[in-house]
């Protein structure tokens, strides 16, 4: 069987070309070869002692530049996150901030959904991760969606009380909150005259709903829509979270489960709309950084201080901007986090 008579020369040419490409790529990749943040030297500038009490929630501010404390260098921290862009950005922000404060901080992002993340936290594989108060209350602690307090401080206290029973602690909340939302193309909403989720009653049987694979069984997703709104859909398509807008654009789903902080909503205001959650099945949650009590004690006061400090700038517009950079402009969460920390004055 003489199949490969011409192979040697062709093979050699291909080999050289491909090896050149490979070398080129690894040479370029040398710069980004570490996926963990090394301790950055943060020079301390004159600390901005602005105690702005008004409008802190909406405009940020009230933080201070991060100062590197040499005492922290003996503490190693691993910051985790769940598996979608907003979470990855937060994870990177915390990691880089802690590194700037002098800790040996590295990130271990995209662990999975919340039960996986919690398990990883409890097993000690990560030191902490950002969780939504609403998710914690409904998913971990079994609250019904209507029982989730809408006041962020109340929600935090409630969640913290439960976390403490397991040796965990949740730091105070971020300014911004995010929630699941039922969204669709504006044209569809106008066609059926839909403004709230309850408006779907009677119409949902004609519509295809799309959500993440686990959405089907979640009470803060399809299961909740069925149980608490009494809606039945023609079909449920399960797709990865990243495809939540693609299915709408390609007409493969009429309704999709989105997030209120999604950048696509702001960027294409005339294309997508959200339906109002009049029965409060989709509670909004601020981010709480969850960690083990023991880890927090061993890490010293700078741990909580840095986290709370760096959160102060995370208002809704800022979070949406960061989300946009990663989801729309395809920056890495690391780049977006660095840009935030620098722009907000936390690091140089």
């Amino acid at each position, binding site marked *: 069987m003489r199949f490969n008579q011409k192979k040697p020369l062709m093979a050699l040419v291909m080999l050289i070309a491909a090896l050149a490409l490979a070398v080129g790529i690894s040479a370029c990749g040398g710069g980004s070869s570490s996926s963990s943040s090394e301790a950055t030297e943060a020079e301390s500038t004159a600390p901005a002692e602005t105690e702005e009490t008004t409008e802190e929630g909406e405009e940020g501010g009230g933080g201070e530049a991060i100062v590197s404390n040499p005492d922290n260098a003996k503490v190693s921290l691993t910051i985790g996150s769940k598996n979608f862009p907003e979470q990855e950005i937060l994870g990177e922000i915390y990691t880089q901030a802690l590194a700037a404060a002098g800790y040996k901080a590295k990130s271990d992002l995209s662990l999975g959904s919340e039960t996986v993340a919690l398990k990883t936290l409890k097993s000690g594989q990560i030191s902490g991760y950002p969780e939504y108060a609403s998710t914690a209350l409904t998913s971990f602690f079994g609250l019904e969606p209507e029982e989730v307090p809408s006041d962020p401080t109340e929600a935090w206290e409630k969640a913290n009380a439960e976390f403490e029973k397991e040796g965990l602690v949740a730091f105070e909340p971020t300014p911004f909150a995010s929630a699941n939302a039922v969204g669709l193309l504006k044209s569809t909403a106008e066609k059926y005259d839909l403004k709230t989720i309850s408006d779907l009653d009677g119409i949902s049987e004609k519509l295809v709903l799309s959500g993440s694979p686990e959405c089907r069984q979640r*009470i803060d997703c399809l299961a909740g829509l069925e149980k608490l709104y009494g809606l039945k859909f023609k079909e449920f398509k399960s797709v990865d979270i990243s495809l939540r807008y693609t299915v709408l654009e390609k007409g493969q789903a009429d309704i999709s489960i989105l997030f209120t902080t999604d950048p696509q909503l702001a960027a294409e205001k005339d294309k997508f709309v959200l339906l109002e959650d009049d029965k409060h099945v989709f509670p909004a949650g601020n981010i709480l950084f969850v960690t083990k009590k023991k880890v927090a004690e061993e890490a010293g006061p700078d741990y909580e201080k840095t986290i709370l400090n760096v959160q102060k700038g995370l208002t809704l517009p800022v979070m949406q901007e960061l989300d946009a950079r990663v989801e729309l402009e395809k920056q890495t969460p690391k780049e977006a986090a660095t840009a935030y920390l620098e722009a907000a004055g936390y690091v140089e």
Partner: protein
Amino acid sequence: MSVALLPHPLFAGFAGAFEFIFSKQESSVTGGKKVGGFDQVLELAWTQIEVSLLALAVALLIAIPLGLYFGHKGTGELLAVGLGNAGRAIPELALIAFVAAIIGVGIVPLTGALAVLGIPPILTNTFVGIRQVDRATVDAARGVGMSEFEIMRKVELPIAVPSIMTGIRGASVNIVATATIAPLVGVVTLGDFILGENVYGVDGVVAGAICTAILALLFEFALAGLQRRLTSKGLRLQEAQ
């Protein structure tokens, strides 16, 4: 639970999975609705079987005629064999993701993508199988007065069956394996258990892995049996020597 009685932590991991397969389990995120259990396993398995068979059928319809044609004529070797090589190199995840992003999610695009994965091994093996038929035999058949088509059907094809079936088995392994990640693009197969740790728990993940493995093996055994039946007795005796 019974898990505590098991001597080795290794088995403890699998015991939970087996429970998941056979009886419905509680899940923290569902607000009371149970997950797992044999019904769901069968439902997801059936979807996987359906889409795999469909893709395999499409791949066969395209690859075998092409392979027969080129093999009989003796041309297109670079295409048939090169495609086999290149096809083996296609990363399944990239293909599925690409098709989903460009064409869309759902059974039709997925079947297309899976068929694309299945065509190269079948094409190559059909081609090689036909080529391996002794030229003297083919000439003899021509001498006896058989038409080209008859030669293909009665002489070349039967001899090439083992090779073709091997290609089909290779294609099916690839297709069934890739169908496992179909939940990412809208077709809910057994991979849903593996990818949905949040809902199904670690037990569900391992259960999904076990079920997927069993399904793949069933396909493999079925095709191996089919191969044995389709291979003419003479060839079978020859192989056994």
